[in-house]
């Protein structure tokens, strides 16, 4: 192996004492110093905190202890994950200066596994967006092409991994916010089954859809990260209480005997080069021993509309608490209603306001049944459509995005066009299923293309097995992507 290695190897080296966590961290901080100014992946680089954590890991190693599965692995956290005493802004003015008094469950689990938190990554404000351009701190740029967006809403986390700032990052995926930026930045991004990773401490966007997941340089790294952050949590009532599989142990089991369905609805709307890459991935799976067939789930055509009713509806309620009373921004006014209104009007950006109003409308008297109520029924149809496909197929394959990374500013003025960039990722969120985006070559201009694999609820093991085969067949894959320096 070259110096670039997998996260598991890196952690092993730190646990063995062959590399120190501090040295690994400094290498990454140097990378951040170098390139962060042109990328703006972070809202905050937590160098001092990271140095303390790395030193603590090294101390554990020195004393003969085991610092954990992610010993000394630098991790970047999306800025909607609560970190005790460390600003958590959701890239919104309304949370400026807020220091959460508690850690998200995933943050605790990463720390307990010896990971070192290097910073809080930029995102679309409250995760509402597909390009990281709705951030109050300004856009993140795609490390592959600084004139283009990294995708969103977890654009900062995707960019951080792509730029080598950290071998792992966490994002949240409500309608594709992990997979879409992963595809656009050329890294692996995984959305686990709803309920497998605790949402406690994830600032809610749309509670029935939000799920935390990893960004990584490889499927194996993402699998290891999932192994660490997943599992039941009493603090989240929707957290599933079941033995969590160790994905890393099954990842090399191959696809022999599996049936892979190529999802025609996703192919139809994609750019030709992306459709072409997807077909290549299908061929690779066939040569690895899987049966590949085309499959149609016509209900997914309704997903975008249903999503843009359900997610804003939940968001309108989730974002009510930003009222200027207990934390965050307050803009003073003569009475409480005026203060709430002034605070929210000044604190939220345009996209957030748009979605709050859309969601409020979808839930309001007279429109509830036609909009929100119908959308919940469409959700049932989508689940039924997928379950029909999964009677024949183990995993579904399609593009992650209809296009590769688009130029900064290209879609900001036209919300509907922006929303369409999530058309391939949204159906999975509505169903609660897991999915993963794997880099698969580039377009003619050298921009990364991602292919997406979808699996039934709780079939993460199957998903990563297939993803590993796709990854290995990807043009330009060297098996050493990921940890730099």
């Amino acid at each position, binding site marked *: 192996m070259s110096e670039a290695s997998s996260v598991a190897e890196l952690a092993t080296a730190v646990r063995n004492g062959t590399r120190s966590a501090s040295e690994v961290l400094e290498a990454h901080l140097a990378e951040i110093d170098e390139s962060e100014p042109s990328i703006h992946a972070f809202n905050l680089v937590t160098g001092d905190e990271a140095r303390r954590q790395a030193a603590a890991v090294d101390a554990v190693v020195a004393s003969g202890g085991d610092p954990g599965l992610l010993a000394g692995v630098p991790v970047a956290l999306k800025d909607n994950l609560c970190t005790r005493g460390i600003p958590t802004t959701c890239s919104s003015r309304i949370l400026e200066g807020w220091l959460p008094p508690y850690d998200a469950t995933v943050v605790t689990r990463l720390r307990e596994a010896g990971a070192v938190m290097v910073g809080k990554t930029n995102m679309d404000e409250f995760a509402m967006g597909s390009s990281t351009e709705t951030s109050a701190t300004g856009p993140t740029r795609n490390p592959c092409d600084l004139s283009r967006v990294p995708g969103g809403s977890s654009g900062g986390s995707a960019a951080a991994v792509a730029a080598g700032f950290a071998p792992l990052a966490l994002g949240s995926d409500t309608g594709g916010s992990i997979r879409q930026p992963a595809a656009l930045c050329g890294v692996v991004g995984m959305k686990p*089954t709803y309920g497998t990773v605790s949402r406690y401490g994830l600032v809610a966007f749309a509670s029935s859809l939000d799920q935390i997941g990893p960004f990584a340089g490889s499927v194996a790294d993402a699998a290891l990260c999932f192994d660490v952050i997943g599992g039941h949590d009493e603090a989240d009532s*929707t957290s599933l209480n079941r033995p969590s599989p160790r994905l890393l142990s099954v990842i090399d089991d191959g696809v022999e005997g599996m049936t892979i369905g190529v999802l025609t609805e996703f192919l139809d709307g994609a750019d030709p080069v992306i459709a072409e890459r997807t077909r290549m991935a299908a061929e690779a799976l066939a040569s690895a021993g899987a049966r590949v067939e085309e499959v149609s789930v016509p209900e997914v055509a309704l997903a975008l*509309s249903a999503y843009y009713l359900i997610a804003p509806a939940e968001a309108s309620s989730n974002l009510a608490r930003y009222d200027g009373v*207990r*934390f965050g921004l*307050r803009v003073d006014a003569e009475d409480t209603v005026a203060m709430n209104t002034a605070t929210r009007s000044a604190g939220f950006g345009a996209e957030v306001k*748009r979605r709050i109003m859309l969601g409020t409308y979808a839930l309001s008297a007279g*429109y509830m049944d036609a909009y929100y109520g119908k959308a*919940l029924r*469409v959700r049932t149809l989508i689940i039924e459509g997928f379950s029909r496909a999964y009677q024949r197929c183990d995993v579904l394959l399609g593009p992650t995005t209809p296009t590769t990374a688009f130029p900064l500013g290209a879609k900001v003025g036209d919300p509907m066009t922006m929303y369409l960039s999530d058309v391939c990722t949204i159906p999975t969120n509505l169903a609660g299923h897991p999915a993963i985006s794997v880099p698969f070559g580039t377009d003619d201009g050298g921009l990364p293309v991602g292919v997406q694999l979808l699996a039934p609820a709780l079939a993460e093991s199957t998903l990563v097995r297939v993803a590993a085969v796709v990854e290995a067949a990807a043009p330009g894959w060297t098996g050493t992507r990921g940890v730099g320096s």
Partner: protein
Amino acid sequence: MTEHPGRITREDVAHVARLARLRLTDDELDLYTGQLGVILDHAADVASLDLDGVAPTAHAMAVTNVLRSDTPRPGLDRDEVLAAAPEVEQHRFRVPRILGEAP
């Protein structure tokens, strides 16, 4: 069953903005009325469906009876809680005049 609600009006947008405690300028009202109209037009494919026989799905994963034992756990340090507040008096969160009772 399948009637599609009328196009969202400027008054509708003003109403939801009030419900959501957002203040919009006249220009913003126009802009949002147009944008929300486009999005809701797209949603007409869903709004116009006849789905009377289809059950709604609020949760993707069907789980029931997730309960916690009635055992006290330590809460937050009060000073830390109040330090985050925009305005505090007598260890309470201070808010400007309240115009009406809670509904």
